[in-house]
């Protein structure tokens, strides 16, 4: 039994923010959950999948976020409760369907949880999902701590069911991936039965068809829901105020920034000067509540991540109520008091408060600060992100790099989203030259592949991972084949959604619930689409490189090379070495070799280290994963690999 399904009300557990969201959904009696993996959201569906059989839930990793939301919506239409989870850019993917769903309305409670990543800690962007709530005209909730993440998620289902509209819950990395104590509520006993009713009148929300036309009528009804929600938000316990009745400054905040703001006020000892208005219901904003607090003072600071979403809406409200609340001075993103990119933290809020209120604050003495900075600059060399020891991507990019060098026409790789995005760094030999959204590598390559007409003769490669292939590469590959774009797509199939924790995808014959399901084969799909397909093991660097050169020279439209090798951290490879690897110290001649320290300087596997005293390469036993690729790379043949004896 998971601690997430503990039936005892009032017990307390240390849980991740994502798990608090899960517990909230369980307390709301969620029946169906779907999503697509993406940091920092993945643990939501992972955890729900683990408790699915115990609580009779249906949980799936869908092929992409749009389909995930469609699956969740079907459950809602059948009067079940459904949760759909994704990272911020997942909402971009799902947004086409979301617009229509917001138009038709929903039935069973349905909650869309988006986990944003301010500061792009593990993303290729720091996009804001909050604007979608506004754009789609659906309610937005933002939890400001772990307990609230649970309570809010639970309430979101009730709200959704009451207004028959999807509710948007927005978390951020510092809530989703942080942990804290929460106290449990009750788990419901009642079961729901699924049935989709469609025999009623067309405008009947419960028994009519689920279609967005007649658009004018439905849109008006949707906006009436927003008005109703605005009224409900006036009284919401998720909006709180701490501070004096007449503060010098009103600080309005939401989400993790609430915790930073509270701490900044405490560190500066401003409890008597600054009023802290924490908003949990951030769209539509409750005007009466805001008016009440805006009346308290003339100076207002808004602290949020990343863009001035709250700030702009508060300003609109203040303008609408100008006659009542008077003229305000606003501090926030637009005037530069706080940065408009990157994540915030307590220090940035301390700095902003210090500036606005004219306070001197130094956390440590200047002397200490200077030595600490100096020591870090000389004593702590930067750790660039690298592919893990034994990572198949290193071998793949090594071959791609060599194939392109041999070809000599300045070929390049259009990149995609996954660990292999790091191939724009030295660890991937800087072969990757474009990086955008899921599937965009192949789409962009498809465009480059048609530029021969304008004199371009550079070879065009695209890379994608196995999960990415299903998510968004398939339409781009169809496009490339159909339009005879001259490209080579390299699918780096490492048997799972590796970067986010080995979630299964359609290529794996096992689903989120651990059941056996049909695996959908990447090579066969590519063949059916009409591409020439080759399959290789990237650990065979010689064969892979030769195949690549052969494919690049083939001028007949789109080609696909599937490189199959499991991730070094995958359950099937973790802690299992194929080879015992060592550097024969009598063969390695070190710096006089002429190889220019090829293994450590160029190939750069972290399992190989350079002994500065002996001036020879060595294998770090603790780090080496035993893939044996380096033995093929050493020009002297000094790296020896021997089969690990079978036990």
């Amino acid at each position, binding site marked *: 039994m998971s601690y997430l399904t503990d039936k005892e009300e009032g017990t307390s557990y240390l849980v991740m923010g994502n798990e608090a969201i899960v517990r909230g959904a369980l307390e709301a009696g969620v029946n169906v959950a779907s999503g697509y993996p993406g940091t920092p959201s993945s643990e939501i569906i992972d955890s729900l999948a683990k408790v699915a059989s115990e609580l009779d839930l249906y949980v799936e990793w869908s092929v992409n976020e749009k389909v995930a939301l469609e699956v969740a919506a079907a459950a809602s239409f059948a009067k079940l409760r459904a949760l759909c989870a994704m990272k911020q850019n997942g909402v971009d993917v799902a947004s086409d369907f979301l617009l229509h769903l917001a138009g038709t309305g929903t039935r069973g409670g349905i909650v869309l949880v988006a986990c944003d990543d301010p500061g792009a800690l593990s993303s290729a962007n720091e996009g804001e999902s909050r604007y979608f709530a506004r754009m789609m005209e659906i309610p937005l909730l933002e939890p400001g701590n772990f307990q609230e993440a649970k309570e809010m998620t639970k309430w979101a289902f009730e709200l959704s069911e009451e207004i028959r509209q999807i509710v948007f819950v927005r978390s951020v990395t510092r809530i989703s991936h*942080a*942990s*804290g104590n929460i106290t449990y509520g009750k788990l419901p006993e009642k079961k729901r039965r699924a049935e989709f009713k469609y025999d009623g009148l067309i405008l009947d929300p419960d028994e009519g068809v689920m279609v967005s036309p007649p658009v004018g009528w439905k849109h008006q009804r949707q906006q009436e829901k927003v008005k109703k929600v605005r009224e409900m938000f006036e009284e919401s316990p998720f909006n709180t105020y701490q501070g004096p009745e007449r503060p010098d400054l009103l600080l309005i905040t939401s989400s993790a920034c609430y*915790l930073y703001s509270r701490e*900044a006020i405490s560190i500066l000892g401003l409890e008597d000067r600054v009023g802290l208005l924490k908003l949990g219901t951030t769209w539509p904003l409750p005007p009466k509540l805001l008016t009440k607090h805006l009346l308290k003072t003339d100076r207002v600071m808004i602290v949020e991540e990343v863009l001035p979403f709250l700030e702009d809406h508060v300003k609109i409200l203040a303008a609408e109520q100008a006659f009542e609340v008077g003229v305000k001075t606003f501090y926030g993103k637009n005037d530069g008091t706080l940065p408009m990119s990157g994540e915030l933290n307590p220090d940035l809020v301390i700095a902003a408060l210090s500036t606005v209120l004219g306070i001197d604050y130094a956390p*440590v003495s200047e002397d200490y600060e200077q030595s600490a900075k100096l020591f870090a600059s000389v004593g702590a060399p930067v750790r660039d992100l690298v592919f893990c020891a034994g990572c198949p991507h290193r071998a793949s990019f090594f071959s791609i790099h060599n194939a392109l060098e041999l070809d000599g026409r300045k070929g390049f790789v259009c990149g995609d989203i996954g660990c292999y995005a790091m191939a724009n760094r030295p660890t991937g030999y800087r072969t990757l030259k474009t990086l955008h959204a899921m599937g965009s590598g192949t789409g962009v390559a498809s465009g480059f592949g048609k530029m021969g007409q304008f004199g371009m003769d550079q070879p065009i490669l695209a890379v994608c991972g196995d999960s990415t292939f299903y998510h968004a590469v398939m339409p781009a590959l169809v496009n490339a084949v159909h339009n005879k774009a001259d490209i080579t797509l390299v699918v780096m199939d490492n048997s799972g959604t590796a970067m986010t924790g080995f979630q299964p995808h359609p290529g794996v014959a096992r689903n989120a619930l651990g059941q056996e399901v049909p695996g959908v084969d990447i090579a066969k799909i590519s063949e059916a689409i009409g591409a020439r397909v080759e399959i290789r093991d990237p650990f065979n660097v010689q064969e892979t490189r030769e195949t690549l050169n052969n494919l690049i020279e083939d001028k007949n439209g789109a080609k696909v090379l599937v490189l199959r090798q499991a991730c070094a951290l995958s359950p099937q490879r973790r802690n299992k070495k194929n080879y015992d690897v060592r550097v024969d110290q009598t063969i390695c001649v070190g710096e006089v070799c002429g190889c220019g320290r090829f293994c450590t300087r160029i190939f750069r596997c*972290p399992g190989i280290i350079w002994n500065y005293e002996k001036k020879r390469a060595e294998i770090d036993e603790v780090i080496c994963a035993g893939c044996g690729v380096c033995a093929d790379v050493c020009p002297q043949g000094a790296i020896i690999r021997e089969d690990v004896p079978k036990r």
Partner: protein
Amino acid sequence: MKAKQLSKDPFNIIITGVGGQGNVMASRILSNMLVNKGYFVTIGETFGASQRGGSVISHIRVSSRSAWGPLVPKGRGDVVVTLEPIEAIRVLAHYGNPAVEVLANTRAVYPASVTAGESTYPTFEEIKEMLKKLAARVWLIDATDEAVKLGNSILSNIIMMGALSAVGHLPIDQDDFTAVISRTLPLDKIADNLQAFALGVGMMKEKRRQER
């Protein structure tokens, strides 16, 4: 349960290291031990892309009064536990202060740039000197070497937790550790972990005895 008052509230622990060293696991286990003692604990951690060879930092905020945010403010670290020696230097640049205490595993994990010869890794003596200048107390612990002797290098994180428990800032001991891991770890891993924790406790006790 009423939690014992701490020397500072919130008490800020930073556990740092390199992706793959068991940083997150160590912070989970430590925090669960503290939650069982009745404390409010908030953990903030950076993982995801940082699994691949990058620096990993877990912020653990412990309070007998209320829950705090997931990030330690600048200059407010109370104890830094590092699984890789230079990571402590990196962390102190932001979270250090003259009263901070450091427990450092001595085993180096070289950044790719060092292996490639593009930057240099400080000598052990240099690391020691820098840490001593920045911290009130520094304990250097050969956790990885001992863990390798136990048969699994990953146990270095548990050895470090054992050592931390024996410093005396936090009211936790081997029994609290046993209670947590018997709930969270598979049966076949428990014996090794108990041994590692006890080893860490022993190493720290010996160091403190030598100090006197």
